[in-house]
């Protein structure tokens, strides 16, 4: 497969010195208020990531293909529905239709008037790697550009170990060709399993979020580093998904 170009990278909350100034939830202004009202942290993370990369690269949100990925999905909504079930027993229509894994896919497509390809994936620790794979393969099969949006929200009580981690969203705008603004940040190739790759080590409180697996790639692209980036955090086994970051 050919290398794909990275036209933009988005992250919420901001990393580094800007982190302390971040609001408690992403603004997610891509969604008009009628669609944003009552949305979960997860959906806001996704919408924020898509908006960030579109603002950087000029991606056409009315036509770009989208791949959403989350290890635990709309877990806050799932548990809220169980609370309702054990309360008055009646579920909320608004909550129920926002409980699916592809909620953000639906809402963003409605907001942008986008009738193109969109999917929503889950692969646990390998969610970032598998979403990049789906996007790279889409481009190989003819898609011109794909936004990959990754997000996970904290686990709600009473799930074991809740909340486990802080909210985190990451997005990449990948293209087959040079973006409209004339420059690409990097190129990606060689997505593969490497039996010798070390696990990425990441700091708390984001480090336990499954999306943190994508932060070394974000960092490499933003810092202009080239070379192999591991797309999985620690865990059992020795084989980990990796990708090569090269000049565009």
């Amino acid at each position, binding site marked *: 497969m050919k290398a794909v170009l990275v036209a933009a990278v988005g992250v919420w909350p901001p990393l580094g010195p800007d982190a302390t100034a971040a609001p408690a939830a992403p603004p997610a202004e891509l969604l008009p208020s009628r669609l944003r009202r009552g949305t979960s942290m997860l959906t806001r993370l996704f919408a924020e990531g898509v908006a960030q990369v579109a603002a950087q690269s000029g991606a056409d949100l009315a036509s770009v293909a989208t791949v959403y990925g989350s290890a635990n999905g709309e877990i806050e909504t*799932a548990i809220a529905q169980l609370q309702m079930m054990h309360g008055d027993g009646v579920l909320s229509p608004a909550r129920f239709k926002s409980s*699916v894994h592809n909620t953000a896919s639906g*809402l963003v497509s409605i907001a942008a008037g986008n009738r193109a390809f969109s999917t929503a994936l*889950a692969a646990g620790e*390998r969610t970032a790697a598998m979403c990049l794979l789906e996007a790279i393969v889409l481009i190989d099969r003819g898609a011109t550009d794909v936004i990959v949006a990754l997000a996970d929200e904290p686990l709600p009580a009473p799930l074991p170990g809740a909340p486990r981690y802080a909210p985190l969203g990451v997005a990449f705008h990948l293209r087959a060709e040079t973006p409209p603004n004339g420059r690409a940040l990097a190129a990606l190739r060689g997505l593969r399993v490497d039996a010798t790759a070390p696990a990425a080590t990441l700091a708390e409180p984001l480090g336990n979020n499954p999306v943190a697996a994508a932060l070394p790639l974000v960092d490499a692209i933003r810092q202009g580093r080239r070379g192999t980036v591991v797309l999985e955090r620690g865990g059992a086994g020795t084989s980990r998904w990796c990708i090569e970051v090269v000049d565009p």
Partner: protein
Amino acid sequence: MPAGYPVTAYAMCNALGARTRDAIAALSEGRSGLEPPPFELPFETVAGAVPGELPALPAAVSGWDARVTRIALIALAELSEPVSRAIRRWGKDRVAVVLGTSTGGLESTERAYAAHHQSGRLPAWYDYDLQHPFHAFADLVAHVTGAGGPTYVVSTACSTSTKVLGSAMRLIGAGVADAVLVGGVDSLTQTTLRGFHCLSVLAPKRCKPFSRDREGMNIGEGAALLLVEREGEGSVRVLGVGETSDAHHMSSPDPAGAGARAAMEQALAQAGLDAAAVDYVNAHGTGTKRNDAAEAQAIASVFGARVPVVSTKAFTGHQLGAAGATEAVFSIVAIEQSWIPTSLGADPVEPDLGIAIQLARTERKCRVVVSNSFGFGGSNASVVLGAA
């Protein structure tokens, strides 16, 4: 080289039967699997449960034990030999696992939450990481089969397990995999039954897709798995998959059916076929007023009233994330065995739909079938399956 990729093996379990042959026999004989739900609800409905006691998982993988994984392994048991053969032929790292679900292990979390509500403690049997997240059952399937290629779950509500066929075609086409075990699995949950009831789209009796008298949908559970390979012996090939978005509403289809129509047209274009080549359309056909009207309009705009159209939801219930793969298997059976099932419950058909709803099981030579799956979020997927 022939278009698409062969389906070299398939299996399913659902309300029609715990074995593939039983489910096919019930479909052929026009027997519905819908019964009162296996748990109490504060309203009337019927549901499609996999019959009988579901075998517990083997001790070596007992941590994954959940209703959804039990259902998955029932179907997988029928495919152990073909998947092993594919691993021997292609190598384990060239065999991918791409499965779909809408609710994953939610049924386990519902029971654990209920126990916590009673006692203030989660039960000892509950392991969130192995039983709830979507990837858990896909990892289990990969572990049990020994498949070592890319493993992930697609979850786009009710279009899920038609979209996995699109992923399989791309993974093989791009050279990432040589075989992909695809499918969908979902179990009945309180959340889905109560949720669709709160949207006022759950039927109190057996659903009647495309009928003038339809009152809504029923929910079902099940699993369907298909092995798609780069090359191999298979009487049916996956020829094209169309995937679009409505961009209209989270839970109601675009009334004009534009996204659904585009999905069918994309699938046909990928297959390199005209609408005239299609012998049969397996409709999404949930039985809700809005879905059936919008889908009929979309089907009519692509095929006119020439092609027989069937919904099988009154046989199995709507299996959500397992619906697309199950109906892909039903479509393969139509091609292999040259018969089309009756669109159970459709009589008397809603007038002016503009499509040819099939009111009886019919012997018919089918070379090309289109199967539709549409879901929340305006997610649409259509697959074209054709005789090899």
